[in-house]
C-alpha cells in the first residue's frame, strides 16, 4: 500500500471501539456522510473506468476527456456541498476512524477534482493514478462500512435500551430476537468475506480490525442484554469471541473464522434459539 495509508493504520490501532452517534442529529449527520461517501465513490469509479478506457488506442480520447471533466465537475459539486469553513467536517469526522488519513484523502480528492488528467497511454503516471484511485475507492468503501456498522450498532443499542415494552413482553422479545439475528448475520457475513479468496490481502487486515471491533461491541451488548441461546452454543460463542479478542490481528486464523461461522449457523438456522429469558448464563 502507499505511504498515506500508514497514518490510517496508526490511528486505527489507537482506537478501542467503534464510536456511536450521540443523538438523532448525529445519526442524520452520519447518514449525510454515508451519502457523500457513496456519491464521491461513484465519481471516483467513473473516472477510473474512463481512464481504463483511455489506455486503448482506438477509443475516442476527446469523448473520454470530456466525460472525465464531467465527473470531476460532479465531484467538485459534492465536495463543495459538504465543505464548511474550508474544511470537510463530514469527511474528516471522528466516525471515519482515520483523521490523519482523511486529511490526506480530502487533499487528494480536492486535487483530483481539479487536476488536468492527461490521457497519454505511454504516460506512467496514468497507471499510478489508477492505483491511487483504487486505493481511494477502497478507503471510501471502508469508511462507508464503518459508518454502516456504527449505525447498525446504534440501532441495536437503541432498540434494546428503549424499553418501550415491558421487559418480558412478547414484543420486547421479538425486538431482541431481530436485533441479535441481524448482528449475528453480520458476523457471519464478515466470517465469509474474510475467508474469501476474492478479498485482497491488504484489505483483509483492515477488515479484520473492523471485525474485531464489531465483536467487541457485540460482546458488550450481549452482556448488557443477555439473550438465551442454548448454553453450549453460548459458551462456545463467548470463548471464540474471547479467543479472537485476545489474539493478535495477524494470528486470527481461517480456522477460527470457520468455527465462528459454523457456530453462527448453529444459532441462526434455528431462530427459536434466540429466545430471551429462561436459560442460565455464567
Amino acid at each position, binding site marked *: 500500500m502507499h505511504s498515506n495509508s500508514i497514518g490510517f493504520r496508526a490511528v486505527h490501532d489507537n482506537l478501542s471501539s467503534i464510536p456511536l452517534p450521540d443523538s438523532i442529529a448525529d445519526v442524520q449527520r452520519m447518514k449525510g456522510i454515508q451519502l457523500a461517501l457513496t456519491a464521491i465513490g461513484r465519481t471516483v469509479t467513473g473516472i477510473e473506468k474512463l481512464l481504463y478506457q483511455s489506455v486503448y488506442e*482506438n477509443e475516442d480520447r476527446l469523448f473520454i476527456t470530456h466525460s472525465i471533466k464531467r465527473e470531476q465537475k460532479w465531484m467538485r459539486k459534492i465536495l463543495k456541498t459538504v465543505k464548511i469553513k474550508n474544511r470537510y467536517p463530514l469527511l474528516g469526522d471522528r466516525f471515519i476512524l482515520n483523521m490523519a488519513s482523511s486529511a490526506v484523502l480530502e487533499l487528494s480528492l480536492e486535487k483530483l477534482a481539479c487536476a488536468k488528467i492527461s490521457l497519454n497511454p505511454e504516460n506512467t503516471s496514468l497507471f499510478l493514478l489508477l492505483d491511487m484511485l483504487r486505493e481511494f475507492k477502497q478507503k471510501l468503501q471502508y469508511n462507508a462500512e464503518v459508518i454502516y456498522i456504527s449505525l447498525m450498532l446504534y440501532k441495536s443499542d437503541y432498540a434494546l435500551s428503549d424499553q418501550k415494552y415491558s421487559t418480558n413482553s412478547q414484543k420486547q422479545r*421479538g425486538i431482541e430476537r431481530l436485533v441479535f439475528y441481524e448482528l449475528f448475520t453480520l458476523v457471519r457475513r464478515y466470517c465469509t468475506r474474510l475467508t474469501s479468496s476474492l478479498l485482497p490481502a491488504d484489505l483483509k487486515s483492515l477488515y479484520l480490525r473492523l471485525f474485531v471491533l464489531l465483536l467487541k461491541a457485540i460482546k458488550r451488548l450481549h452482556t448488557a442484554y443477555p439473550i438465551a441461546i442454548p448454553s453450549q452454543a453460548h459458551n462456545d460463542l463467548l470463548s471464540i469471541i474471547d479467543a479472537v479478542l485476545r489474539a493478535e490481528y495477524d494470528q486470527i486464523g481461517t480456522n477460527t473464522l470457520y468455527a465462528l461461522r459454523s457456530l453462527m449457523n448453529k444459532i441462526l438456522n434455528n431462530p427459536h434459539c434466540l429466545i430471551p429469558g429462561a436459560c442460565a448464563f455464567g
Partner: protein
Amino acid sequence: MEFLSDLNEFIEVPIPDQEIEKNDQALNILVDNRTEPDNTTTKPHFNLSRQHFKNLLSDLDAVTAQLDRIKQAAESYAKQKNSAHIQTVKKALNKIQTIFEYNIYRTGMSGSYWSNPLYDFRVWAGENMDQGERMPLGYMDTKSDGPDKIFVIFQQLQEMDITKTKDTWESVYEDFYALITFEKVRINSYLRRIDSFEKFNTILDQGASYYALKSKIFDIPTMTMQETMLSTAVRYMSLSIELLEEIKSAAKENLKALPDKKAAEALAFHTEQLIDEVNRLASHGHFNGMSLLTGRFSRNHEQATSSMYILLGAEMSESTRVYIPTLTAVSLVVPGNMAQPWKWDVYEAFTSEQKTNQFIAALDTSIGKIKQSMQNLDQLAKKLPEHDPYSKLSFDSMYQESMQYFLKSYSLTIKNLAYTAQPEHSINTQSTLVLLTLRNAHELITEKLINMRELAVQACNSVYNDQEHMKLNDEFAALIKSIEKITEQTVFNGEKILHTDSTLSSDRSIKLDLVCDEDGIIQKQLLLFPLDPKALELSRSNYFLEINRVDEANRAIGILDWALAKVNSNKARIGSCLQSVFIAEYKDSLMRDYIKLLTSAPKKNNSAATYLEYLGNLVDFTKHVYKKAEEYAWMAMSGVYTYNDREQMAFYFSNLLHDVQTLIKHAQTLSEALPQDITFNNQQKTKLSALVKYLAKIGAETSNFMEEIKNSDFLRSIGSARNVFEKITWIISIKE
C-alpha cells in the same frame, strides 16, 4: 417496533421502483434471452466466386472467338492465297496469348509458362474446416510444377503455318479447341455447383443457428431441437432429390447424344460433378455437429439405414427411433446389380445405351425411397408435442420471486463504491456479481471470436487479392486487441479474473472460490480457462495470429475453434454456478420468510406449525431441484444432442445433485437440532417424524446414487441416460 422500522427505513437507501424494474429487465436478459450474433454468412464470398468463374468464362469465350477467326482466315487463305490472312492469324494468336497471360494465368510477362491460376481455385463450402473445396481447372499434373497442358498445345499451335496443307495444323487446332470447350463445360458445372452450395448453406444455417453457441443449447426446448433436426433432414433430402433429378435428365440427354463420344464425355463430366455434389451433401449435411446423412447412427456397418432416438413425451416409453437413409452416391446412384459398387464409373456407364438405362432405373428407385422416408419424417414431426413436458419456466419463475430481494441489493452494490459487496447485502451478492461480470465478458468474447472466425473463413478464399487479405488481417488484429482489452478490464476487487496475469491463476486455470449462501454450506470452486489472447494462443509476445494467406487462415480457424470450445466450457461452468447461486438464494429466502413470521407474530402456539411449514417448504424445494435434474436426464435421452452437449448436461446434472445433497443435509441438521421450547401436538409429531424419515431415505438414496455415477459415463450415452432417468424418476416417486 415502529421506531425500529422507521429507523430501518431511514438507514436503508430507498430504491425507486423504476430502478428495480430496470434491473429486473437486465437480469431477465442476462438469465434468459440474450440475443446471440448471427451465424457466419458466406453470401458475399459466393458472389465473388461466381464472378470469378463468369470472368473466366467470358475470357474463354473471347479465346474461342479468336480461334474461329483463325479457322476462317485459314480457309479463306486456302482459296484466295491472300497474305493479309497470315497477318490475321498472327494477330489472333497474339491476342489469345495476351488473354491467357494477363487475364487467365496472370503471369504478367511473355515467355514464362502458364501454370496454376486456372487450377487450384479454392471455394469454401460450409461450416467446418474440412469443407474447403477445390475446383480444379486446367490440365496440370498435380505432382510437378510444370506447365499446363493448355500451354504445351498452345505452343504447338503458335507454330501453325496456314500456307501449308490443312493436315499439318488441323489436329493441333482441334485439340486446342476441344481443351477450351471442355474447360467451359467445367466452369459451367462449377457455377452450377456454387448454386447448390448456396442452397445447402441456407439449409445448414437454419439448423446451425442452434449450435453456433453451444452453451445456449439447453435453453432451446428439446422438442424444438428435434423438430428442427427432422425438418433439416427433410430439406437435405429434397435437395438430394433435386440433384438426382438433374442427374437423371443428364442421363436421358446422353441417350439422345450417345453415338457422339465427345458429347457423352462432356455429359459424363457434368454428371460426375453432380454425383460428387450428392456425396458432398451426404458428408457435410449436418445438424448440431452431427452428420445426418452418412448412416452414422447405424448399429453395424452392414445396415445401411441410420436411426436415432427421438423423445415424444415425458415417459421413457414415449420415445421412438427415427430412420434417416444414407444419401451417399454409392447407395443412391450405383445400379443395384453391381457386384463391386465402388468400382462403378460414370464415364463407363455413359458409353452404352444399356448401361445408361440401368443407371436411370437405379436413380428412379432411389428417388422413390427418399420420398418415402421424407413422408415418414414429416409424419413423425407432426407427432411431436408443441411443448416440452418439463416446463423450464416453472423452475425459473420460482427463482424470480426470490431474486427480487437479491435485485435490491444488486442494484445497491452496483451503485455503491466498488464492486465488492458490502456487509449490508446478502453474501451471494458478491458471488452473483462475479458470475454476472464473467458471463458478460464471456458473451462479449464469444461475439469477438465468432467475428474473427467469420473473417478467417473469408480469408480462406483465393478470391481475395493481397490488399483485401491485408484489410481482413487488420480487422482480425483489432479484434484480438479488443479481446485483450476485455480480459484486462474484467476486474473484480482489483483482480483480473480472466487473465493469466491474475494472482488467482495457476497451472493454466483460474480458481475462484465462491460462497453462494448465507450459511456458507453451498460453496463452489469455479475453475476457468483464462481467456486473454496469450492463453487462447491468439498472440505471443511480439506476434499476432495472422490471416494474410490461405494456409494461415486455415490454421487460424483451427485455433479459433479451440478457443471457442474453451469459452463454451467456461460458460457452462459459470451457468451451472449461477444455478447454484439461485438455489442458494431460494433456500435463504425460505429462512428469511421464516424469521419474518417468527418476529411479526411471535405467538407460541403457532411456532410449531411455523417450524413444520418451514421444514416442509425446504423439502418441497429439494424435490423441485430434483425435478430439474430429472429434466437434464430426460434431455440426454434424445438423440439430437452430441457427446459434448451431454458432457455439459452431465456437468449441470452433477452440480445439481451436489446442491440437492447439501439441501438435504441442511434440512436434516435442522430437524435434528429441534428447539426445546416448541411443543408439538400429536398430529404435528407424526408429520415431523414422517418428514425426518423421508429426509433420511432420500438422503441415503442420493448419496448412493452419487456414488454409483461417480466414475461412470452417466448421461454420456443414450443408454446410460436412460438408466439415470429411470433411477431419478424412482427417487422422485418416493413418498413422504
